């Protein structure tokens, strides 16, 4: 299927749950509500015509102080899907507010989401409901804050860790 056909199919099936769609150089994106995202991802993975069997990336964006998006939800969680069988791609986005930064986990769908979601938690502080082991991935447990948030001070010093330091 072409990207436009995939988006049309998803719009027909999920209707109001799809908030926005756009494409950039032929790469299609659907923005979906938080409640519907796992259902949509499951549909993308299990429908034979779509067969998105690979989650190539799961990351987030902090839109704090972003021109034109000052009032909207602060974070966007981004899923990059790829189908090995059909060689097509789709990007799925979910918008979440700062004071309620929680998204349902995608670990049951793609096991790789385990570490990717841990990284997003580590760097942005977005939590994933139902994740089996939501610990920091790259940083250490004593770290305070989430460094890829736009309001994390660039020169904040963390206390040194480890034996006898």
């Amino acid at each position, binding site marked *: 299927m072409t990207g436009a056909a995939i988006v049309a199919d998803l719009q027909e099936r999920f209707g109001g749950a799809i908030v926005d769609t756009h494409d950039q150089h032929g790469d299609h994106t659907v923005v979906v509500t938080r409640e519907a995202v796992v259902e949509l991802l499951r549909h993308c993975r299990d429908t034979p015509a779509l067969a998105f069997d690979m989650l190539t990336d799961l990351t987030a964006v902090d839109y704090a102080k972003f021109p034109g998006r000052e009032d909207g939800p602060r974070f966007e969680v981004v899923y990059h899907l790829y189908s090995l069988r059909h060689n097509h791609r789709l990007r799925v986005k979910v918008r979440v507010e700062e004071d309620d930064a929680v998204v349902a986990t995608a670990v049951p769908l793609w096991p790789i989401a385990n570490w990717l979601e841990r990284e997003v938690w580590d760097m942005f502080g977005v939590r994933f409901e139902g994740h089996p082991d939501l610990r920091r991935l790259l940083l250490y447990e004593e770290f305070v804050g989430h460094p890829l948030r736009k309001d994390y001070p660039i020169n904040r010093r963390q206390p040194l*860790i480890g034996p006898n330091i």
Partner: protein
Amino acid sequence: MGVGNFFTSKLDEAIGWARKYSIFQYPFVTACCGMEYMATACSHYDIDRFGAGLPRFSPRQADVLFVVGTISHKMAPVLKRVYDQMTEPKWVVAFGVCTCTGGFYDNYATVQGIDTIIPVDVYIPGCPPRPESVIDGLMKLQDKIAAGAQRY
């Protein structure tokens, strides 16, 4: 000055001379400075001329800790442990600007100079330092080893 004092000072000098030409280094290589370290260590620049040709990859057999490359907060406890495992007498060389001050990595992940963790004897700045600078630093370290009070 008695004969005993004369003998001790000459023995100090002899031991200092021997130590400065038998440096067993421990290269703690974490980043791109390692390339310049290898260039220095290999035959073209050849630190074997200064008696530092044999890296020991066990801290227990090493005299000089070469900290080569950026040290992150997560790596800091490892560096500290390696330093603690080395036996006296021991010296530390901060190789490259990241180990000296953190360099341009003024961010959440990087230790702002390894002297916040362990004592440092010689700082070799540069990003990465030229082999000439490294050899200059090594010779300064040799002077320091020879001049320091010898314990034996």
